[in-house]
């Protein structure tokens, strides 16, 4: 087990290193940099002025040096300065994390509390009309673009209540907090709920077919007891995996949802920073997202291994 963990940790670091190289190179391939944007409004400028600014921002150094500089800083906890705001990148990124984390957490909660029970229900009543309807509903959930759903929610909110949630970092009432966080979380969580439901259903079915369930049935355990006591307990395992898959899935959904609902979280910030060619922000944000995804997956694997002794550590 220990060797397995060490191996996984090493691979994790290797993956993160690779991502850092990929993102760094990709950004430098992008035509135009922050200096072009800053001078865009100024029109024709002295090339020397441009060169000076590039030098000041460290953009004129060889790409390898720039990379080492970044990674070196990163290891020391120094993320550099945003080109646009000229504030430390850390100060720009950190305050936005709780906002996105809250959204993601709520969305996960929403998707689990809807997706798991419906998935179980669907599996238990496999082949019934209910199963049929639930499957169609979950598929349609996966088919709705979350930004469109967000737009529809906004439209409905205005025509029904005459108002709509506008982001406020310190909501005063519970209602406001609900409107600010829960509504967008539902818009993005809807898709996740559909995904959770599908995975729960199929893993539940898998388990219901297993021998020990048959044994339990044969021994005369009631249907309810079989379904909910024996099967669900074991079906929780794959559901943990879902959370791993959804970490990446959610971040994608959050980018558009934060845009639609105008939430100043990290997902929208990434899009804005890309637009400004604000390398220090983009690099570090992408790394942050990668770390989250990798760590979540690692934790899920470890949990899996801890719960299910059948896992082979070799592969």
């Amino acid at each position, binding site marked *: 087990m220990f060797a397995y963990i060490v191996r996984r940790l090493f691979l994790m670091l290797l993956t993160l290193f690779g991502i850092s190289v990929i993102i760094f190179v990709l950004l430098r391939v*992008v*035509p*135009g*940099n*922050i200096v*072009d*944007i*800053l*001078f*865009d*409004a*100024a*029109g*024709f*400028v002295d090339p020397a*002025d441009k060169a000076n*600014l590039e030098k000041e921002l460290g953009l004129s150094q060889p790409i390898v040096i720039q990379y080492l500089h970044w990674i070196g800083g990163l290891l020391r906890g120094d993320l550099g300065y*945003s080109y*646009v*705001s*000229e*504030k430390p990148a850390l100060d*720009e990124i950190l*305050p936005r994390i709780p906002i996105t984390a809250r959204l993601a957490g709520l969305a996960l909660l929403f998707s689990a509390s809807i997706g798991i029970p419906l998935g179980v229900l669907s599996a238990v009543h496999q082949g019934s009309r209910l199963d049929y309807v639930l499957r169609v509903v979950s598929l349609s959930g996966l088919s709705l673009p979350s930004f469109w759903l967000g737009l529809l929610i*906004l439209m409905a909110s*205005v025509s029904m209540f*005459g*108002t*709509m949630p*506008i*982001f406020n*970092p310190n909501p005063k009432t519970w209602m406001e907090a609900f409107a600010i966080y829960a509504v967008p979380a539902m818009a993005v969580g809807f898709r996740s709920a559909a995904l959770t439901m599908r995975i729960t259903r199929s893993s539940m079915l898998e388990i219901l077919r297993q021998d020990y369930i048959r044994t339990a049935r044969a021994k005369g355990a009631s249907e309810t007891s079989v379904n909910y006591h024996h099967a669900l307990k074991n079906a929780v395992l794959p559901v943990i995996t879902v959370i791993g898959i959804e970490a990446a899935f959610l971040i994608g959904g959050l980018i558009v949802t934060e*845009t*639609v*609902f*105008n939430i*100043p979280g990290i997902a*929208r*910030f990434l899009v*804005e920073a890309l*637009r*400004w*060619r604000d390398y220090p922000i983009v690099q570090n944000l992408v790394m942050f997202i990668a770390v989250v995804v990798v760590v979540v997956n690692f934790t899920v694997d470890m949990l899996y291994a801890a719960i299910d002794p059948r896992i082979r550590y070799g592969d």
Partner: protein
Amino acid sequence: MRSVQALAVGVLSVLAISDVSFAGEPKSGGIFRIYHRDSPGSASIHEGATYSLNVPFMPIFNNLVMFNQHIAQNSIGTIVPELAESWAWSGDNKTLTFKLRKDVKWHDGKPFTAADVKCTFDMLMGKSQQKFRQNPRKSWYDQVNDVTTNGDYEASFNLKRPQPALLSLLASGYTPIYPCHLSPAEMRTKPIGTGPFKFVEFKANESIKLTKNPDYFKKGLPYLDGIEFTIIPNRSTAILGFVSGKFDMTFPTEVSIPLLKDVKAQAPNAVCVVEPNNVSTNIIINSTSPPFDNIDIRRALALSLDRKAFIQIMFEGQGDIGGTMEPAPDGLWAMPKDMLESIPGYGPDVEKNREEARKLMQKAGYGPDKHLQIKVSTRNIAVYRDPAIILIDQIKSIYIDAELDVVDTAQWFPKVARKDYSLGLNLTGNAVDEPDQSFYENYACGSERNYTNYCNKDIEKLFDQQSAETDLNKRKKLVWEIDKKLQEDVARPIIFHARTGTCWQPYVKNVTIMSNSSYNGYRYEDVWLDK
């Protein structure tokens, strides 16, 4: 000039009185909530070239002089003193001297002196040790030799030749006085001014917060406790926020005409105004390479435009047709109507113009069977893209098949500078309704924002002639003549001048939207909320 100033002061006091009698005694207090259309790159007005910066940060500063904030049409006659108590031109009209107020303090408590004035303009002229990252309005001070001080409370601008327009440039929202003791970098992140409001924080993509300056030198002002800008790039979300009462005012001059109808339907009590904003939508033409190196094709292009259709689509008819200068009645320097219509392509009969254009195209070797294939490049922003789409549709009528080439902001100017385009769709915002600003900035040989590198020495002589002319009527005639020539040269065909709306809740008092600039009207020192 003295009399002009006196007149302006008189107008101000009359206006103030009428305001009071109309709206009742101003009430102090309250936070003024406005949504902001996007996240400005920094907080330094001098380094910006978008009014996204002026609106939130103008309340932090003062100018030497300022356009009266309650008269919609900015002109030399509406200029009032601000940090300067008074101003005077020397006899030869080559020195402009300001007497400064002695009771002004920066937000950090340091006293304001003439040295700050000198610092600001030295920096703008590129003469100081510390440099701006970018300095988009350097050309405004081309005629200024230097700025000198006499003691702590007098500063003089010494000119190379008379330039009456300088005062107008100094009165723009683009010309705040910066403190000597802060670096440009500090001004970009945590600006300090002398103005009615102090900077609190600027969170990119989220909000900008200002708070009342209790030590403001105008006693009793400002009325507001603070101003809060919430950054909402999505226009419909922003408007919904305003309609539902989350904001006291929309972002100024940012409500499009179709959205305005929506606001009025949803919030019938809201006060809305529609004003021209002195931003022209124009075509930049690469005349250095085929096909537009051919003057016939350039003329054909100018003849093919159906300006009314543009205005119909973009503004439901509420836009203006004109040359470089903002059209009348809000523009001060607009050509008379008959003069405008005598310019090729401006005549009312579009079909006739296009017939002529097609003849020119045929002369150049194109026709119904041989279309010209080009790309229309523009920035990936709706106000640029939308007219480009209409333009492409219109030039189909003269055998030009164009494809839209959407360019990222980061690549737009480098591409234009490389001359890597044939037609571009461009927006030119004029901060001051003043020929010196728009002619030199956009059409002078080698000027920084002369994107097309248009260069005509004869016209340039006329630029200088009008600039030095102190007789207003003579100057106007010259300006008309220049504007007409620029259009006939197809230097940068102007398609239309935009009009946009601003709305505020009925309890917001003392907001005036300028009708010939969208850069100058945001001091907000006497805005108050009747709640």
